[in-house]
């Protein structure tokens, strides 16, 4: 039986960014995924936004969600450059239609300032790495986005918001980790895990592996895998998000991310993003579902068409639909809406780390790897930096 120091289960953005960070150290580690390729689950079905942190009401200071996202902001340009992955600063617009919107954005603006721009802020980032948010009046907004609805009176502008290609990024992270010595075992579904005093036996559909440490980064399945060794000390609810892509012709209509604040009693997100490969991505119709739910209810497309029609009125979007698809993500504290990430060692299972991301998980990727390395070091794993780590070389990770 093969033996490893660390086994990472899941090759989504979480597993691959942790693998890449670990590949900077002398360690014997492997990444296992049930699929035959990288990033085929949540990491391939999202809004592709990164550098989030200043732009949304959900980033409450004090949460891991805020910490990992905000601290990741300055790391994005270098990371994507090293790996040769597309990255584009598009900027985000929080759209204001009335005074109540304005008051809420003002609160957000203050929060963003307090949590990252003030010198004594918990996640201080200097001004050349994190540009301050600013309010735009109707005229400056029109200059940026000429086709925007006349109902919009202004916006809170976050110049930091960016887009990337999460699938390409996860692949590049994996291939770079592989080139630096991390092994990959794809097409192997975890079936059971045995917990022993000093090691785990991980049984997949095809192999058994002995490992000292497990990092459980299985996306929507983190709870199920954790339950195998009684390491589930958290709960989340699966939430399906339905997105619609519009064809390349819509690219020239809009160049920023833009969103309306959620309305009371309406949980759905109303946002548009010009994605990096061209065209607009619009969503998100949200619904609590079973994790295996594959249905695509028509309310999804209807919602998304309403959203884009509300932001850019008078364009025949219905004729430019490219595809409607969904992703299922874990939402913690769903009964209050106070979502947070989980990146932690459970109370009663040492040498195990659960990684539950959910909203803005891609965006937190650069810091996530560092956070996990910290946890490993705290658990006594000896991590010695590799002098010959190369941040850009790549090697295929597929089954040879």
């Amino acid at each position, binding site marked *: 039986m093969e033996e490893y120091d660390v086994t990472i289960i899941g090759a989504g953005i979480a597993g691959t960014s942790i693998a890449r960070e670990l590949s900077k150290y002398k360690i014997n580690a492997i990444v296992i995924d049930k699929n035959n390729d990288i990033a085929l689950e949540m990491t391939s079905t999202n809004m592709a936004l990164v550098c989030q942190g200043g732009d949304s009401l959900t980033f409450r200071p004090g949460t891991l969600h805020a910490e990992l996202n905000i601290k990741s902001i300055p790391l994005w340009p270098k990371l994507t450059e090293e790996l040769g992955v597309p990255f584009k600063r598009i900027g985000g617009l929080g759209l204001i239609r009335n005074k109540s919107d304005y008051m809420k954005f003002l609160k957000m603006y203050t929060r963003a300032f307090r949590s990252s721009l003030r010198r004594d802020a918990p996640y201080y980032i200097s001004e050349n790495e994190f540009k301050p948010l600013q309010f735009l009046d109707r005229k400056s907004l029109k200059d940026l986005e000429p086709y925007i609805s006349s109902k919009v009176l202004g916006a809170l502008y976050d110049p930091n918001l960016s887009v990337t290609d999460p699938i390409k990024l996860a692949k590049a992270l994996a291939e770079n980790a592989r080139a630096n010595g991390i092994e990959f075992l794809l097409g192997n579904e975890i079936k059971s895990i045995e917990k022993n005093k000093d090691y785990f036996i991980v049984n997949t559909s095809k192999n058994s592996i002995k490992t000292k440490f497990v990092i459980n980064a299985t996306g929507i399945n983190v709870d199920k895998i954790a339950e195998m060794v009684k390491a*589930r*000390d958290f*709960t*989340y609810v699966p939430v399906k998000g339905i997105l619609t892509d519009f064809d390349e012709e819509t690219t020239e209509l809009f160049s920023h991310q833009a969103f309306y604040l959620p309305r009371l009693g309406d949980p759905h997100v109303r946002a548009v993003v010009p994605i990096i490969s061209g065209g607009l991505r619009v969503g998100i119709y949200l619904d609590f579902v079973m*994790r295996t739910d594959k249905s695509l209810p028509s309310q999804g497309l209807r919602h998304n068409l309403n959203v884009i029609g509300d932001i850019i009125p008078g364009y025949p979007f219905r004729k430019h639909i490219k595809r409607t698809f969904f992703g299922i993500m874990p939402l913690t504290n*769903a*009964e209050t809406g106070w979502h947070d990430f989980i990146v932690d060692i459970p*109370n009663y299972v040492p040498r195990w780390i659960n990684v539950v991301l959910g909203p803005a998980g891609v965006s937190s990727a650069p810091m996530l790897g560092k956070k996990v390395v910290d946890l490993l070091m705290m658990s006594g794993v000896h991590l010695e930096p590799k002098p010959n780590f190369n941040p850009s070389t790549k090697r295929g990770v597929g089954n040879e």
Partner: protein
Amino acid sequence: MSRVPNKVTLSIALKIINAMIRFAKDNEMLPGSYAVVDEGGHVIAFERRDGAPAATADIAIDKAWTAVTMKASGRILEVITRGQGWRLNVKHKGRLTIIPGAIPIIAHGRIIGGVGHSGGSAEDDLKIAQAGWAAIFREDDFESEVEERLSMARKLSKEIIKYVTDKSLRPVSVAIVDEWGEPLLLYRMDRAPFGTLELARDKAWTASAFRSFSENALVFYGEKVSTTNWNERVLPVPGGVALEYNKEFVGGIGIAGNEPEKDKEIIVEVIKKLDFQAIT
């Protein structure tokens, strides 16, 4: 592919309770009380584990009721009342329980029931209740292993439900209480009106309190027992039975749903099959 339920049935309520117990055990949390209520706030299923304080029973039930009737989780209520929620307790005979561990069951965009847990710290209660709600989004079904007393109560109530179903009788509520009249288990079969659960609980209490058939409270201790109102749980109506196991008094069972004499007959027939004796 299974769909998210749009109504909490008895079997879904039991799935929720099993998930809560499993979570509590996996995380070495103290044994407590687990309640699931319908969208009106009325108990569908309740269990109290061995060793859990008796007082946690009504706290768990009232938490679930609060989450449904206030349409919000205990966490939210705590925040929006700025920790002063207890002041509201002059209302509703003190039932409002504005502390974590109370969660509305949200599915298809509406509240279809509530979950309550009591027995641990506020943080543990919250985590256990969350594990309960999330269970309706799970495809897998499992039964958690429970301690001896609760497992006997489960067995007894399942036999009652089976008997009622096999004989096509009217659906019933089942209540099992300990030797002090405190609830260990409450189950309400689908389509049994919510009032039957309260009747069953009162019958079980009466049988336990007087260590005899519930109707004997009247016969042995005089008419006044039911009319003096010294305890609102006294219900000297047939359908409550005091139980012995290995010649030892262990508590009472009450059911309601059919004519009282029929309810009593169901219990007497079913306990014969298990090793319980009725105290006459």
